[in-house]
């Protein structure tokens, strides 16, 4: 079993009227099956309302399933006694950097998680030091988070999760509120964690460019996984993606248009370099 595994996971949101009768049911997750192996970099793509954030919250035991099961690191999330251990092995970075920083000094915020799980004082300092240097924010350790840029704040939030030493980190649209520079910083940090520390990463996003370097991609719509595969497989299905109103990285789109008009280049081109190589090979 992988580090995160779901079996027919269903989540329903109920809207109730004033008497508490169920008015409407929204199925946010509809029999989702997912198996993530340790050390992978997984991306989950989807529009607003596709259920991707709901899925993320299940991984962190912040929501409980209506039906089906989800295991994190071999633990059944629905068991009450597993909640804290699950949260220790799967950390989460949220969308809004302001709303997830608890303390008024960077280092104190990074120490918040380790404090909660009862790490001894000396070790907290080691972990904070280590986490801050991992995300490259060491020189801001005594700063107030309010004075940092969006990307920096988000890196502090990542450090806060890293300091808890989870096996897996779920990024729930971490770049949605950032400028392009901030987005680059955060995604680069996620990749570095994956490569250097072997942390399993689940990146939830709707930016196609951020998906390109992932090991495996799931595409969600209306609570279902509608496509899955490596980025190359996914992006070679340009017309299918377009049917679901999903964008394709511009390079991929250009390559696809070229191919359609008869230029002999392979499908599923993801980066500018690849496209240049492919075009150079064309006689």
């Amino acid at each position, binding site marked *: 079993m992988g580090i995160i595994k779901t079996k027919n996971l269903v989540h329903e949101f109920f809207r109730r009227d004033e008497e508490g009768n169920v008015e409407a049911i929204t199925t946010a997750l509809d029999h989702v099956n997912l198996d993530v192996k340790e050390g992978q970099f997984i991306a989950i793509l989807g529009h607003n309302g596709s259920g991707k954030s709901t899925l993320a919250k299940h991984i962190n035991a912040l929501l409980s399933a209506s039906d089906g099961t989800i295991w994190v690191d071999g633990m059944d999330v629905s068991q009450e006694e597993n909640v804290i251990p699950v949260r220790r092995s799967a*950390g*989460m970075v949220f969308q809004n950097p302001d*709303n997830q920083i*608890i303390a*008024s000094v960077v280092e*104190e915020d990074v120490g918040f998680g380790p404090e909660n799980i009862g790490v001894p004082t000396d070790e907290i300092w080691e972990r904070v030091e280590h986490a801050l240097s991992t995300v490259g924010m060491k020189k801001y350790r005594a700063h*107030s988070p309010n004075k940092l840029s969006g990307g920096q704040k988000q890196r502090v939030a990542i450090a806060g999760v890293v300091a*808890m030493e989870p096996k897996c980190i779920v990024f729930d649209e971490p770049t949605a509120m950032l400028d392009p520079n901030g987005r680059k910083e955060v995604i680069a940090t996620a990749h570095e964690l994956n490569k250097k520390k072997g942390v399993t990463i689940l990146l939830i996003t709707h930016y196609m460019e951020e998906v390109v370097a992932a090991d495996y991609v799931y595409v969600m719509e209306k609570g279902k996984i509608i496509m899955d595969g490596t980025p190359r497989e996914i992006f070679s299905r340009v017309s299918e993606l377009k049917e679901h109103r999903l964008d394709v990285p511009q390079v991929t789109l250009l390559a696809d248009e070229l191919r359609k008009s008869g230029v002999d280049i392979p499908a599923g081109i993801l980066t500018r370099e690849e496209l240049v190589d492919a075009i150079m090979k064309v006689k």
Partner: protein
Amino acid sequence: MIRDITIGQYYPANSIVHKLDPRVKLFATLLYIIALFVYKGLAGFILITGFLILAVKMSKVPLKFILKGLKAIVVLLVITASFNLLLTPGEVTFFKWGVFQVSDTGIRTAVMMMIRLIYLIIGTSLMTLTTTPNQLTDGLEKSLSPLNRINVPVHAIAMMMSIALRFIPILIEETDKIMKAQMARGADFDHGNIIQKAKAMVPILVPLFVSAFRRADDLAMAMEARCYNGGTGRTKMKPLKYTASDRVAYLVIIGFLAAVILLRIFVPYFG
């Protein structure tokens, strides 16, 4: 104007005052406030002023930064001063019109009140400027921990306080943003009488509250995701431990209050 509120903000610097134990600073602030209301006469005033100047100098917080906090209470200052000035009867009356009068006692109380209020703000904001909200809450939590025995949720209260302090600047910024957005669409906050002005605030308060609740929800979730489970089983990154300078500070502040009281008793009306 709204950005001038410095209460609850932390000014990072490397000074003796910053390094003091938050319990010392809380205790010192309490005694300082007592001293402010105990003192009488010029001698006490000089002593308190000297103490305050010394504390500000040692804290390495620029005086300008502290004084900015005063702007927010100018209205309060003016009202208090004018009430004291115009309504206090005294031995010598310089001016009288209906119930209003300006007397020697009036002038003296007005000035004293102004000084007290200004010093109060400077002193208390010096504490919050040199203590991170987390340290402050740790200090409160530790000082109030005996209350745990009578089932007061000290940790929860302390946590709420520290979060409230952390979000003050964020909510201020947000208020500013909402105000500007409303102004851009023609809202008028500067004209009209008090009631009209108050009514104009409603379209600011509603979105502010909505967003505050949303933030609270997000933050609660982020805290849960980081294994927050109340005060039980928590360790501290910065556990409170008294050092030699804390003990010295305790002595200094107790000595200060004693001196102020003694001056009041033995040198009462001097100036």
